[in-house]
């Protein structure tokens, strides 16, 4: 690139940054069931949360005119980097026996000051970042509790709960991968899903409502029915509908039923 052009490009970018004011936005998440907040300190005999962590990818705010803007994430060296956020709503206390003490309940980043209506994001880690070595990966992919050492790749979402006489946990991630751990070529079952929240406005809280997961999981008869996303694990079939994912293809075919705007 010649020098005059470089200067022109810098000038142009500098100008555009100045001409548009940015604001820091926080998009908070909270766990609920049927409108009631839940956490690791179980209060309900019929439902006690044991786990809730997930990767949010490419959070994007939308405008009424149909245009959209990616949330430019603050990189804090722990929870956010390159369009990817780890949300962790368990603190390792109480019923969250497999949990970790640290928590992160928000996406935080910059967007141009504007009116926004609607939020979209995906749950999952993109393929090209999903099969790196977790011991050398940078945050938020350095969290070993989210890595799937034997299936390769990350657990996109891990959620769990106990009921009066049973319980259920689900680890969602890509499956049926081909290649070897250091060199995964492809995965037959992507198992990622998109979340579209048309009603979202800045300031709203996003709730993760366990209602659908509780009703689709076979978690009342006292038999083991957990789901670790195995392509042959029939115990995943019904719970996958909560994410809108077709268990037989690993592709999303309908709207998810887990993330909602505000009290649900």
């Amino acid at each position, binding site marked *: 690139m010649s020098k005059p052009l470089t200067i022109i490009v810098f000038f142009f970018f500098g100008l555009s940054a100045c001409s548009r004011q940015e604001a820091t936005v926080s998009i908070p998440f909270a766990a609920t069931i049927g409108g009631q907040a839940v956490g690791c300190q179980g209060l309900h005999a019929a439902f006690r949360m044991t786990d809730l962590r997930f990767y949010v990818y490419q959070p994007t705010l939308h405008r009424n005119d149909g245009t959209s803007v990616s949330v430019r994430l603050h990189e804090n060296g722990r929870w956010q980097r390159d369009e990817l956020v780890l949300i962790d709503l368990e603190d390792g206390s109480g019923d969250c026996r497999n949990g970790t003490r640290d928590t992160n309940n928000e996406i935080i980043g910059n967007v141009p000051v504007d009116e926004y209506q609607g939020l979209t994001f995906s749950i999952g880690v993109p393929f090209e970042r999903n099969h790196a070595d*977790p011991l050398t990966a940078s945050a938020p992919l350095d969290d070993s509790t989210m890595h799937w050492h034997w299936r390769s790749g990350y657990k996109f979402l891990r959620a769990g709960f106990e009921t009066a006489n049973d319980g259920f946990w689900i680890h969602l991630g890509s499956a*049926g991968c081909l290649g*070897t751990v250091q060199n995964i070529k492809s995965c037959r079952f992507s198992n990622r899903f998109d979340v579209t929240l048309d009603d979202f406005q800045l300031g709203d809280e996003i709730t993760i409502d366990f209602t659908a997961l509780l009703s689709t999981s076979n978690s009342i008869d006292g038999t083991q029915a957990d789901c670790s996303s195995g*392509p042959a694990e029939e115990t995943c079939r019904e719970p996958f509908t909560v994410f809108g994912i077709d268990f037989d293809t690993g592709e999303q075919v309908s709207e998810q039923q887990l993330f909602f705007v505000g009290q649900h």
Partner: protein
Amino acid sequence: MKRLIGAVAAIAILAIAFWLMQKDKFEWHIAPPLPLPEVPIDNPMSDAKVELGRRLFYDSRLSINGTMSCASCHIQSLAFTDGRARSIGATGEQHPRGAMSLVNSAYGSRLTWANNLLDRLEDQALTPLLGDNPIEMGMAGRESEIVTMLSNDALYASLMREAFPAASNPYSVLNVVRATSAFVRTIVSFDSPYDAFLRGDVDAIDASAKRGMDLFFSERLECFHCHGGFNFTDSSTHADANVDRVGFHNTGLYNIDGNGAYPADNTGLFDMTGERRDMGRFKAPTLRNIAVTAPYMHDGSLLSLQEVIAHYLRGGRELTEGPHAGDGRLSPYKSEFIRGFELSDEEHADLLAFLHALTDQRVITDARWSNPW
């Protein structure tokens, strides 16, 4: 004169370089024609690293509650298995499968019972150390505890610096995994009576074992198709291998629904791929030291070598009652090599004698691989 000095200097440099190369060359104690194991390029072998790995392998501080080390499930006297049908983790959770022998795992083209992705000890080590389904050592999210422990221990401080001399800060889980893998890679066994026989000591195994050997390698019994090669498994590789040899086989151990189903928590390769043809396919383990690694099969459901032979003799196991009832012999997914055969009592004893001749007393007693603490 200048030229002469230059030549002398060049020769001296070459000599020093050669000496340095020899000095750093790791001694495997494996004699040709046996092949050397493949070593990942980012984790070269060294004596210091192996010694560090041996300490770590036997250190129960690498578990969530200080009760369990790698050696808890990989006991040297049992050829680095634990004698259980299914292993038990630090917090009491039971694994669906039994601990595999680590002997010659350096030659495994794939590791563990039925995983088509795991091909390096460094990757496999993460599951027992960090996995939580089930919890084995249970250290996920506790990496900082490991790093603190290592850097506060004077012995580890010096071992880690020696093992990773180029690292400005050697204290990491990555280096724990590398050192432990380097140690495990040294656990090789080629000193059984059978190996001595192959090397020319014709009296190393008796007449019965020799007859058993012929049976083992016969088309009548078909054992060697899956348990063949220098390591008695078709999922073997080595430093000079040029093909990726991987085998998973259904031996007709279960046939729950008449359509070949295995118990839901142990469907073998099917759990990884979801392809029906992979139902009940497991890796053929090495048969080296097989006489000391009971119970047998991925779930320890065959208690003795006699039961194993009976299973293959019948061409699949029949369970007549219980939740897993069914005739494995009729499984549609069974390997073509599991056809059944007949054995006289003498032949049965001969086959057993051969399997016992695969026990390497050195690997199960040598101080190199014993608890250093």
